[in-house]
């Protein structure tokens, strides 16, 4: 299955949960916010959110800005 994460395509053999995806990306425990297909996924639901083929994900952090 294919996921698009921050505009880049990623392949997975099985459908991961959002929490598993974040672990794969070394983002577990980091302060991030996630939008899945245009909808915010609350942090409390990362573990139970199963990702599906073709999902578009945006994972963001706070950075310096004016």
């Amino acid at each position, binding site marked *: 299955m294919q996921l698009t994460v921050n505009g880049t395509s990623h392949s997975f053999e099985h459908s991961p949960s959002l929490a598993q995806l974040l672990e794969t990306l070394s983002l577990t425990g980091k302060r991030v916010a996630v939008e899945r297909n245009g909808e915010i996924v609350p942090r409390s639901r990362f573990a139970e959110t199963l990702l599906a083929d073709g999902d578009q994900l945006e994972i963001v*952090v706070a950075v310096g800005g004016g």
Partner: protein
Amino acid sequence: MDNLIIAGKPYSSRLLVGTGKYKDFDETRRAVEASGAQIVTVAIRRTNIGQTAGEPSLLDALPPSQYTYLPNTAGCYSADDAIRTLRLARELLDGHDLVKLEVLGDPKTLYPNMVETLKAAEVLVKDGFKVMVYTSDDPIIAKQLEEIGCVAVMPLASLIGSGMGILNPWNLQIIIDNAKVPVIVDAGVGTASDAAIAMELGCDGVLMNTAIAGAQNPVLMASAMKKAVEAGREAFLAGRMPKKLYSASPSSPTTGMIGK
């Protein structure tokens, strides 16, 4: 206590600072500390996938427990992108709802797109956000943004990152006279005197980033800006003397001169 009150919350500092363009997080932290700012703007961006674990983050340098974060929508060119960005910011910052809305219209000048800004402001206010809004210095638009429910209007003094200073004090004056919410000059300040002029006009605060981060010595400039904002505020409160082309009233006594 002469506090700046935004959405019911008092702040003793009237200087708000951005956190971009510094050479590293240590410099960011030292400059923000020297500025005395309590509200700091941050941008929301995609994570750098594959970055080394344990890499320092802005949140480590400026703990959200010590500063009021003001997530912005810098780089957004449509109402939709700005709204999505701030919803992500609210989730990222645990429900924090004080935000800076800016919708740009032109990548060359970074002039704001006020049609899209008005659209986004309507949606965000209805969605429960406390919106501090970057705006052109059009007094009518500024008033409309206030009527929509924005908690502060933030007109440009000149273009973002230009350092050109206060180019249209007359428009700022009209915006200040009409506003019932805080007016904060956002963008265009280049040096300390610009910040003082904005405050002397009666602005409630000044927001800046490049004027500090782009100085040769950002930490020293941050300290200068702190003093300029305080000095300008005190001068405004004190009420300046009227301007006259010349005065027939010298400061020293006209009587008791020797030899007369």
